[in-house]
């Protein structure tokens, strides 16, 4: 019998500016996300999770793990924002961890990626990170610029249609963000079960994901000058 995994990568900013209340809110948010997903039978059957953090360097703190076995370490915040290296590491991890389809088995579903940053890329090779990320096809992804200091233009260079801004870094806003991520994962595992998950889901904007929480605003790509 068959079972296809839905890989989910959480890319979390752990730079110095996240220290204190924000990183605590992220820890709480991820723990709540895991607890909520565990109550959803579809997610329990399909979801695999990985956490990649970026501060001075990008690090995969949890390799791709079955939701049932997942254990979240306590994150601490310090250093710069190695956003580019995090994207490159994401692609490396995916290449290593992904089960490819063979004649005998269906491969994994294309991964979901949720990236959250509160600052601007200032460590490592951003160009390479963007190029690596764009060279692969994703099930879907969302790029969250959290709080007033987050540099929207960095994220827009990855894909303007996938960027939204989170009002602030308070526990309320971050909690709503992680609830939205939870909803997105549940929605995708439901689509998979119904057979309505499509390759094209990752194309286009944020439309294929649940409505954004009230503390989030999509970035209007049309009002931003082209950065090419």
């Amino acid at each position, binding site marked *: *019998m068959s079972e296809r995994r839905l890989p989910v990568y959480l890319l979390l900013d752990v730079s110095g500016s996240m220290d204190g209340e924000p990183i605590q809110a992220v820890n709480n948010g991820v723990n709540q996300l895991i607890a909520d997903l565990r109550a959803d039978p579809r997610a329990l059957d399909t979801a695999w999770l990985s956490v990649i953090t970026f501060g001075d360097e990008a690090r995969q703190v949890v390799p791709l793990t079955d939701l049932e076995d997942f254990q979240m370490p306590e994150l601490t915040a310090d250093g710069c924002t190695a956003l580019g290296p995090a994207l490159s590491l994401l692609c490396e991890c995916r290449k290593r961890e992904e089960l490819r389809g063979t004649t005998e088995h269906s491969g994994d579903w294309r991964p979901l990626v949720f990236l959250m940053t509160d600052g601007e890329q200032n460590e490592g090779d951003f160009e390479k990170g963007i190029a690596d990320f764009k060279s692969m096809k994703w099930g879907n992804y969302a790029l969250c610029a959290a709080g007033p200091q987050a540099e929207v233009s960095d994220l827009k260079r990855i894909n303007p249609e996938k960027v939204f801004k989170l009002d602030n870094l308070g526990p309320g806003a971050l909690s709503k963000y992680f609830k939205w991520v939870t909803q997105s994962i549940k929605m995708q595992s439901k689509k998979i079960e119904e057979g309505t998950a499509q390759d094209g889901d990752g194309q286009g904007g944020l439309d294929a994901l649940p409505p954004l929480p009230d503390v989030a605003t999509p970035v209007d790509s049309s009002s931003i000058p082209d950065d090419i």
Partner: protein
Amino acid sequence: MNVFIPQVQSETFRPEAGLPRLRLPNAKLRKPEPITADLSSLKGYEMLAQRLPKKASLAFDWGEVSIDGSSVTINPNTPGEYAIPIPMCKAGQADILVLQITVNPDPTALMKKEIDPPADAPYQKPSSDKCCYATDQGGHIVCASRRGQGHAIDGSFRDDDFKVETIPEKGFYLFAVADGAGSAIYSRRGSKLATEAAIENLKKSINDSNLDDDADGISAEGAIGPALVAAAKSGFMAIQDEVARKNSNQTELGKAVSVNDYNTTLLLAAVKVNADGGLGIGAFAIGDGAIVWCSDSRSVLLSEPDGGDYAGETYFLTMERLWKTEASDPVAFRKSRVRIFNCDKEDSRHGTLMLMTDGVSDPFFPSHERLRDHSLWREFLNTQIRENAKILRSSPPSPELATQLLEWINFRERGHFDDRTLALFELPDSNKQGEGAHSETPSLNSANAESISEKGDAQ
């Protein structure tokens, strides 16, 4: 040495900051097995080893915990997040070690909920359906269709449907199985309209024509191919008519609808038992699922799986571009979608025809290649249909057979919650009355396995 340990209710216990903590591997009620962890492999154990009880057992209302040396065993029975306080002692000082464990719920138990769809929704449909018919040759037709566990916990309708018709005077048995798209709001109606209209149309074609006069069975050049395509098209047209009707009176559904709101797949088969006892089958498919003729020696796939392995995309009967293709080149369309299979009487008594939606085929045949693997089909038939559903070739037709199939079709497989429909047709082995076909000597070899990959066999 047993050490007395006071029981502490985990629900009310709040581990204080600073107490030593160790996190154990997560437990899973999916497969309720005790979690045994060697504490000595956990970080910080050396410092604690001297102070831990050598042997202890604790009972909580969520499970039991026992300690034997450095080994801790946990038998959980309730999902949740637990902190287990283990009293430690050193030089008269009391302290507590906190073991933390996550107990995952059993997804199957979470799926047990059966929520009825809204009673005021249009197009009501029962959550399951089944039937059993006898054939003139003493064989049986058994069908079952069941709402998927995903729809059951969401309180939505079964989107699958099926329709069977027998024309005994002409030796014909007709089957239609359809899978309404999960993404389409009224697909439950689409699958019903498609199966009913297609079977009605096919029956009329057979009654009006001299298809039954074809003594050599069903031929690829004969009338059955065009009849199957016409039947499928009538299914599409029935949906178009429904859309036009509803849109002319929008108060009925509250808003305008389109054909895509009724998206459905369609699998069709017309079986003819010839005068000489041989069989002819004409089959037609749009969308996923499978039509297969399976015997001990070979399996012949009578449907072409649509869509890519990864796209998850499927074709629907309701895609207008498909019918434009048909209109511009009917011969090519027919060749791509109609399969013809003939066998003599001996073969006909050793094979089984099955039509199934992807809710049944996907868990067992996860790729297109697997759908062409004879050994898998033989195993499916012998293990699932014979052993688990207890439907033997020799089983006399009875309502119980349909009940058995409906119960079997509720099988639990990780990640598969879709609606499921299976229709099967088989004739008794005249040489082995009273025995099940599973007792036949298996005769698989690689040459036989090829028959399923040779389209020529099925055309």
